[in-house]
Structures are given as structure tokens and as C-alpha cells.
């Protein structure tokens, strides 16, 4: 398969035409990319091309079609590893997404290495997917489970974290970017603290960073990094876990079955090499190919430009939303956030706001964002969240503001 052709961009990142769902529905203002992104034509084409020209079960057949499927799958891994700055692409294990990647580390490394009396540290900022697996692991192992508190503006309290770290700390789990607030966490500094004060492994939830700015795993300073394809223009059901080779090699398998074995004796089994040891069963080759097309597309734009585009939209959204009476924005200042604005409006519940915005064709997320520990600390049951990506522009923010003003009318804050 030849790589999808990169589109041509104008300086203002005018790419909406590349996304069929958005062109099919011109009145739609999709501001929920932190939940899942829309897909460009090149990704849909890559999926179709795989099924039309290369579909067979990878790693199995002796016939040339299966070899082609294997090659496509392998090339996809190499391409995605390159995108995420991993020199050793065998250290990128395909998963269903971030959630499965984090559960893999908890079930495999965690069950093999954490002991009673050890300590696992997470943060109050994290998504349930980077919170609950560690909580369950701690309960199973009789380990201590510590939650790092936040500063009032929704950042990890680094002094608090420093006090939590001891020689008994075995795992520290942090997100690169908060899905609920958009806070960009200082990973380099956190990694330095973890190395200095503990012997813990550092696990990073990258679901909200890989799609939005350049990420180079090899210089990130973390031991594991999990990400989701569907949040970065790729298909649903594919993502990955990147780990350090030495650790991945020592870890027991996560799931067992076909493809992940070396030899099955009647009384024991030996494991295949990386990455196959962690990929039991028929791999999701088509979606891996789709994700490779997505990162190709993102690289053609340039991740620096993606970041710059979102920063521009964020500043504009911040400015326009701050001017609305009764509207409160949560989290640190825009410069310290990725493309997310989390807010509440007077006594209008976020669900009501989302329903009224839907009336204007605006899609936002309303709820606890799978971050109930964070919502408790903010002392709100829910927030409304608008999140931006490459296909958004100023008209989406205009529609958001119009919808919010409509909600203010309906709830009687301004005369209709």
C-alpha cells in the first residue's frame, strides 16, 4: 500500500474539508475531541485499502497475502513508533487503547512486583483509567494507595508529591495532560523527583498528549506511556503501550493465547519475543494501519502547528468565555493547558447547558469526565468541557458563545 498523500494546508490550518463527518453536516460544531476525534478521509481510505488489498491473518499464513498483511501491520508499528519518538519499535505494544495499556502494566508489572506494604501513588487529576487499576492493584496486594493533591488552580502539587515519595513507592502514575482540565503536567520534573526520591516506575497516561503536541518517548523520562488512536484521528479500538525494553522483557504476559507463544509444551509454555508476547490473538491490523495513516496526516500538518493552532483557539475561547457573566473556567491559565476549556455557568447544570448547545449544533461534553476524584476537589458535580482539534476554527467558538448566551436566556439571566 502506498502511503496516503498528505493534504495541502493554508497557514490557518484550514482542514475541515478533510473530514467527511464535518463536511456532511456543515452546521455541526464538534468540540468534544478530548472524548474522541473525527477521522480524515485518508484514515478511512487506509482502512478500506487494507481490507480490499491486504486482508489476511498476520503472522500465520504461508501464502503471500498473509505476508502482505503482516508487512502492513509491521510497517504501521514502525510508523507510529517513529511518530512517538521510540527508536526501538518492538517496545510499542498495540492495545485497544490507553485503558488497556494501563491495565496491562498494572496486571503484569504490578502483580509481579508490588508487595504488601509497598506504596502506589496516583494523582487527583487523573482519569479513572489511570486511577482505578492502581487502586485495585493496591487492594489486591495490600499496598498503600496514595492520592497526590492538587493546587487550587488544578495542577499537581509537586511539594505534596515530594512528600509522598519514599523508598517503598513502587509505582507513580500520572497523566501527561488532564482530560478534564487540560492541565499539562511537568513530566520532566516529576520524573526527576521520582528517580531521586524513590525506586518507583513512572507510568504515564498519554491519551491527551499524543494527539496534541510532539511527544518523544525516548526523552520523556517515563517507563511506560499509554495512548489511544481514536483521540488522534485514528480508528476506535486501537492504541498502544510503549515501555522500556528491559522491563517489558521481564514482565509476564498480560493475556495468553495465539501469537504470543514461542512453544507450547503439555506442561508449560514459553513466550514469544517483544512485542508479540503482549499481543495475544489476532491483532487489530486494519486499525493499526488506519492509525499509521492518522499519524502520517498529523506529521504532514506538523505537531508544532497542531499545538500552535490549539493555543490560538484556546486563547480566543478563554477571552470570549471569560467575558460572559456567571461563567467560571477551571484549571490553570491557558498557556499551561492543552486544547481544553472546562467551565460552569451560574446555576445552569452542565447537562442542561449541553442540551441547549446541542440545539445550536454544538457538541460539548458535560459530566464528571471520568474524573470523580477531581470533581470532588473542585466541589462541583460536573463541568462543561469544550475541547479543540485541528478541524476547529473561530466559527466553532462563535457558536459556543451563542449557545451559552441562549442558555442564559432560557435560565433567565438575560431577557430573551
Amino acid at each position, binding site marked *: 500500500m502506498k502511503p496516503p498523500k498528505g493534504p495541502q494546508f493554508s497557514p490557518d490550518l484550514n482542514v475541515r474539508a478533510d473530514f467527511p463527518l464535518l463536511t456532511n453536516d456543515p452546521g*455541526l460544531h464538534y468540540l468534544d475531541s478530548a472524548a474522541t476525534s473525527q477521522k480524515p478521509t485518508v484514515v478511512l481510505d487506509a482502512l478500506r485499502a487494507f481490507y480490499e488489498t491486504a486482508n489476511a491473518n498476520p503472522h500465520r499464513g504461508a501464502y503471500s497475502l498473509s505476508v502482505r498483511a503482516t508487512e502492513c501491520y509491521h510497517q504501521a508499528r514502525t510508523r507510529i513508533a517513529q511518530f512517538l519518538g521510540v527508536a526501538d519499535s518492538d517496545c510499542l505494544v498495540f492495545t485497544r487503547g490507553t485503558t488497556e495499556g494501563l491495565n496491562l502494566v498494572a496486571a503484569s508489572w504490578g502483580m509481579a512486583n508490588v508487595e504488601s506494604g509497598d506504596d502506589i501513588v496516583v494523582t487527583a487529576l487523573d482519569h479513572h483509567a489511570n486511577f482505578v487499576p492502581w487502586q485495585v492493584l493496591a487492594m489486591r496486594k495490600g499496598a498503600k494507595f496514595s492520592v497526590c493533591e492538587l493546587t487550587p488552580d488544578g495542577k499537581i502539587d509537586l511539594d505534596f508529591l515530594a512528600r509522598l515519595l519514599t523508598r517503598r513507592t513502587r509505582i507513580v502514575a500520572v497523566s501527561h495532560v488532564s482530560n478534564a482540565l487540560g492541565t499539562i503536567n511537568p513530566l520532566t520534573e516529576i520524573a526527576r523527583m521520582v528517580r531521586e526520591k524513590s525506586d518507583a516506575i513512572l507510568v504515564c497516561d498519554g491519551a491527551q498528549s499524543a494527539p496534541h503536541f510532539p511527544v518523544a518517548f525516548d526523552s520523556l523520562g517515563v517507563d511506560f506511556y499509554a495512548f489511544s488512536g481514536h483521540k488522534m484521528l485514528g480508528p476506535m479500538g486501537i492504541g498502544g503501550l510503549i515501555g522500556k525494553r528491559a522491563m517489558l522483557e521481564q514482565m509476564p504476559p498480560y493475556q495468553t493465547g495465539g501469537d504470543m507463544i514461542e512453544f507450547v509444551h503439555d506442561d508449560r509454555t514459553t513466550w514469544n519475543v517483544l512485542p508479540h508476547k503482549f499481543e495475544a490473538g489476532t491483532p487489530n491490523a486494519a486499525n493499526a494501519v488506519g492509525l499509521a495513516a492518522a499519524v502520517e496526516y498529523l506529521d504532514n500538518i506538523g505537531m508544532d502547528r497542531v499545538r500552535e493552532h490549539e493555543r490560538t483557539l484556546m486563547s480566543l475561547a478563554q477571552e470570549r468565555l471569560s467575558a460572559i457573566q456567571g461563567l467560571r473556567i477551571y484549571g490553570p491559565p491557558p498557556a499551561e493547558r492543552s486544547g481544553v476549556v472546562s467551565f460552569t455557568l451560574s446555576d445552569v*447544570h452542565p*447537562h*442542561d447547558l449541553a*442540551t*441547549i448547545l446541542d*440545539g*445550536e449544533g454544538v457538541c460539548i461534553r458535560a459530566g464528571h469526565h471520568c474524573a470523580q476524584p477531581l470533581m470532588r476537589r473542585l466541589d462541583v*458535580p460536573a463541568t462543561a468541557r469544550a475541547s479543540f482539534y485541528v478541524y476547529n476554527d473561530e466559527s466553532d467558538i462563535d457558536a459556543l458563545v451563542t449557545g451559552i448566551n441562549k442558555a442564559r436566556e432560557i435560565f433567565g439571566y438575560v431577557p430573551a
Partner: protein
Amino acid sequence: MSQPRSSAEISALYQEMILDHYRRPRNKGVLEKADASVEMKNPLCGDEIALQVQFSGDEIRDLKFSGRGCSISQASASMMTQLLKGKSKEEIDAIRNQFRDLMLGVASAEDESRLGSLRALSGVARFPARVKCALLAWNALESALAERT
């Protein structure tokens, strides 16, 4: 292709009656003496309700709710408590069924008239994602009735 909601549908949803019960909920608080107490959460959105019921023979003598949520869930709880006070088990069962029909958009005009102010919630039927909000208090009621028996 998704069809954005019309303004008319949105206006039909957010009637004055709903906003009034949201802002000034009736029967909100805690009963000193309750025969049944139920706490219920909507795990999807985190909304929560606590419902307390005091019975007198076959009737609901008093009931109160507390918790927090959207205008639909709060108004539904407030109007429900208003309507059910003093009603017998048989009447309550009928009202519950009528309200469910209202949420499914299949209530008859006769049924609707029996629901009193709850009719203001008829617009919810057009918003499948919000029906669960309107039903939260009613699900709590069902548990409270079951707890009693």
C-alpha cells in the same frame, strides 16, 4: 447526518414550570423519621438523589428528597414528591406507569391530565439522553417502595 435540535424543541423542554421547580424545589430536605431511605446515583453523570418516605398504612404520608443534579432531574423529583403525598400504593403504581409512558412519548391525553404539573416534563421524551435524568427520582421511589415490603 445528525440533525441539530430545533429551538422549538429546546423551548418545549425548558418550560417555566421546570425552571421554577429547579430554582425552588418543593419537599427538599430530610425527614426526621423515615420508613424508607434510598440513595441513588446516575453513574454516567454523577447526579445523585436521596429520597426518604414515611408511610401511613397504604399511603405515603410524607416524602422528601435531597441531592444535586440538572434541572430535569431536580424538577422531576420536586414535582413527583408534590404529587405523591397522600396517595395510596395503587394510585402511585398508576402514576408511575403514566409517567414512564410520558417519558416514552406514548402517554394518552387522559393519562397526561392525571400527571398534573409533571406534564411539563413531556418535552423530555424527545431527548433520549435526558430521560434518565427525569427518571432518577422515580427509580429511587421504586427502591423505596421495594424496601418497605
